[in-house]
């Protein structure tokens, strides 16, 4: 069921002409979790503020539960049905407990129920011990938890979260992402959230919207966005590290032949784009590394020879920067592969790229 519909939205900050937010249409359904992603300054916070009716757009209609929001009463009703966690924690100069209770107090809930719900929420976010502390003298992550508690305790119909996990520690972040929010969605709550942490978005979002320079450039599932970025900007933003200019130089068994350089040719199994000059996107995770002698994997049809330039270990995987005869590629592999294959800088390797993982964008 569609909870929220936005039509023909237009907004710009009055003093400046260089930023315009423009969203022709946006719909939000019950239980959905929509990730709003995009570079810094793209307008994510602005959009979130507008659709949570905290910033008046220059133009546009907002429909909630099928009815257009017009009167003061509509707005109040909307605010009471939703909850908003801003990018920067903003707490009242009161106790943590009072900060969490305030939305319920505004809704005239009985004191007993308030204290029960608040206590429960504080425990859930592991800040029970802070209940009586002044909210202005707690740590950054504690403050973020209080902000989340204040919103979650309201059982909203729509939850707007602007970078809600930024300074949370790993265990609490995980419990919110893996338990709290899915439970909420299960009960019908729609969530729109902004984050720059791709793991978070990936795990949490049922739909993505990529906002760049005030415009929604692409929207879809994780698979669509990360597997098929709509433009070079999107590809760069989501960290498809290998964006290589190439040319279509021929055909080979239903497949296109891509030339990245005089000596490097790929096979590509997708549709032929309009132009021959293209950008070739290769997601780092779709690159498989093999040590000599090249051991051909079934699904990886393109094999290149290269040398590891740099090994950058990360928490759950390892980045490899590889030089294949002048073409620079970045691959992501597991720690295990690094250990087992003995990957290290300077080592010659084979790079295997699945033809289906490559994506082309017309070069404009």
């Amino acid at each position, binding site marked *: 069921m569609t909870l929220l519909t936005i039509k023909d939205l237009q907004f710009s900050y009055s003093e400046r002409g260089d930023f315009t937010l423009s969203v022709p249409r946006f719909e939000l359904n019950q239980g959905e979790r929509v990730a709003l992603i995009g570079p810094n300054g793209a307008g994510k916070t602005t959009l979130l503020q507008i659709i*949570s009716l905290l910033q008046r757009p220059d133009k546009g209609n907002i429909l909630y539960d099928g009815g257009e929001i017009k009167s003061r009463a509509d707005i109040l009703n909307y*605010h009471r049905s939703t909850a908003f966690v801003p990018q920067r924690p903003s707490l009242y100069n009161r106790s943590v407990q009072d900060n969490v209770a*305030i939305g319920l107090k505004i809704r005239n809930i009985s004191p007993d129920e308030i204290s029960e719900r608040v206590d429960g929420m504080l425990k859930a976010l592991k800040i029970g011990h802070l209940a009586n502390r002044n909210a202005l003298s707690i740590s950054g992550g504690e403050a973020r938890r209080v902000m989340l508690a204040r919103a979650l305790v309201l059982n909203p119909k729509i939850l707007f979260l602007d970078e809600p996990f930024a300074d949370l520690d790993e265990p609490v972040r995980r419990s919110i992402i893996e338990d709290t929010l899915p439970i909420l969605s299960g009960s019908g709550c729609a969530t729109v959230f902004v984050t720059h942490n791709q793991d978070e978005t990936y795990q949490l979002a049922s739909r993505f919207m990529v906002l760049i320079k005030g415009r929604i450039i692409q929207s879809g599932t994780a698979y669509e966005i990360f597997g098929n970025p709509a433009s070079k900007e999107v590809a760069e933003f989501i960290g498809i590290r290998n964006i290589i200019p190439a040319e279509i130089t021929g055909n080979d068994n239903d497949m296109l032949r891509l030339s990245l350089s005089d000596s490097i040719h790929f096979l590509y199994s997708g549709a032929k784009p309009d132009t021959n000059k293209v950008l070739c996107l290769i997601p780092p995770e779709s690159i498989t590394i093999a040590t000599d002698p090249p051991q051909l994997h079934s699904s990886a049809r393109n094999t290149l020879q290269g040398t590891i330039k740099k090994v950058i270990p990360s928490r759950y995987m390892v980045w490899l920067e590889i030089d294949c005869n002048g073409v620079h590629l970045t691959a992501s592999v597991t720690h295990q592969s690094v250990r087992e294959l003995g990957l290290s800088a300077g080592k010659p390797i084979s790079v295997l790229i699945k033809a289906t993982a490559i994506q082309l964008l017309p070069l404009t």
Partner: protein
Amino acid sequence: MNEIFDIVRTSLEVSGLSLIIAGVIGIPLGVIVGLSRFRGRKWLIALVNTGMGLPPVLVGLVVVMMMGRSGPLGFLGLLYSRTAMVIAQTIIALPLVTAFTIAGIQKIDPELIRQTVSLGATRLQFFRIIIQEARLTILVALMAGFGSIISEVGAVMMVGGNIRGETTVLTTGILQSTRMGMFNQALILGGVLLAISFIVNLALTLIQQKRTDHY
């Protein structure tokens, strides 16, 4: 001694009541002006700030002219009474209280104001929460207002008439003592006035600073 006590009581009653009225009007007014964006807002703020420089003598003069027998409000027969003094002092304190409430409100993080709206506060709830949040500045505003009227002499003299046992307050008492050449008595009354002011301010400051130290 007894007379001094009476004078102190009059001072406190008149200035206290004026401060309460000025607070009841000025604080919500300050919140509204501080938070809303409307045409002419800057002018209104300038007007309020100017009000801080409203010469008490002029306020006195206008009140006298309004409430005097031949004035439009003359039929009330309130000139030279405590009521008239309260009116004049309220007029003097109001711009101060309003201006500093505005300043205090404008200091509140806009994010917190947005948060309050997003929590679904009605207008009244919104006011309550914001005022509570700005309570420290509002306390300063009230202190400033109290300071200005408890120590003000021009207007109370003009509209109260410094009638002994009735409208004599500490400041008019000081002035009168001075005029009578009784400098020592003037100093005593001044000391009492300062003592009151200090006690009130110390109490408020302790409350205020206790809370900000948390920050």
